[in-house]
């Protein structure tokens, strides 16, 4: 499948999303040779995810990442962005497609609905985002830390206001 085919499918997908959800889709970022990103509000992300899974056969979660945007040069916002990279295994046509479904939540109250009920594979990824950025996923079946030491009681280490201990000399 060539690059233009993938672009065509994604364009149709986004058109469909816009028609279905209207102004709930806050922002769409389409650039050739980059991953297409759809930004939605945290209240309706589950709805969008369910739609994507049932109608577009995007049934495979490739990864969940989080970004702290509070120290961006020029355009700092007091938000955390959580991004779900999804693809498809069941559909032949969508095999090469990667779509990023993202949402922004405030840094002071980082709560968002968990998407484990939609994509079961997001469970471990969400646990990692939980420990690294302190995002609380509502409805997650087993929200514990994943990789950090058992004794960790400091801030989540990927937050920008976390200061690495370093070494005193």
């Amino acid at each position, binding site marked *: 499948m060539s690059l233009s085919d993938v672009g065509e499918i994604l364009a149709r997908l986004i058109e469909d999303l816009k028609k279905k959800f209207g102004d709930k889709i806050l922002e769409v970022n389409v650039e050739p040779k980059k991953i297409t990103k759809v930004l939605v509000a945290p209240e309706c992300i589950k709805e969008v995810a369910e739609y994507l899974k049932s109608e577009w056969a995007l049934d495979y979660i490739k990864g969940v990442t989080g970004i702290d945007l509070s120290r961006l040069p020029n355009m700092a916002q007091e938000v955390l962005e959580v991004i779900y990279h999804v693809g498809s295994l069941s559909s032949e046509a969508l095999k090469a497609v990667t779509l990023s479904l993202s949402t922004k939540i405030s840094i002071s109250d980082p709560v968002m609905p968990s998407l484990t009920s939609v994509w079961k594979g997001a469970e471990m990824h969400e646990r990692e985002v939980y420990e690294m950025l302190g995002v609380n996923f509502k409805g997650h079946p087993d929200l514990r830390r994943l990789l950090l030491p058992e*004794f960790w009681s400091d801030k989540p280490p990927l937050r920008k206001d976390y200061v*690495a201990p370093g070494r005193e000399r």
Partner: protein
Amino acid sequence: MGLYARRCRGASFLLYNNYPLKFSHRKAGTFCYSLGNSKTVIESVEEEVVPSSDVEEVLRKYKHGHVYKEGGGGLKYVIYKLKNLSLIKYIINWGRLCSMWPVHLTTACCSVEFAALSGPRYDPERFGWLTAVGSLRQSDILLIEGTVTAKMAQRVRLIYDQMPEPKWVIAMGACAISGGLYAKDSYNVIQGIDDIIPVDVYIPGCPPRPETLFQGILLLRDKIMNEVIK
């Protein structure tokens, strides 16, 4: 302000033997849950503090070769002197440096070079460096192969404490020496293992080539040869 015994670089090895490092069970415990981050792991390794006014005196008191002269006395002192007669000392040290058993502990990627060293091409057994084994009670040398995280640091310390005297430690690779790639900015990498255990030989490199590792082994042999028997 107090001065840590391990910070006295010149006499660190001897001071270690007199003021052993230990995990503070009051503060943290070996697998306790109340610590915060990697810095608190390091702080949980408690050391005897030498007051800065006494540093000179301590160094004079526990000088190389005079460890048992002050406190021991009597028969103990005679045995100590006997063991350090040059011929007996030479034989004991020669025996030690010709049967160095390293602990098989792999913490990171430097272990690949360590495996290359152990093979027949370099053949370290001709210099008394034997196969890495899993039995800590029979080992003499702890070779830290690379990055040590806060989680691993506690295990490393446990392993070190289980080894019998005499024991030596080699820090292999940039990460084990100073944090290497993870210096300053890491949230859970120990910034140099000399924060948690005393180190005899540092082998720089990322990772060091087997030849460099060989040089470290030869350095350690020199050190063992000139050591005072306790």
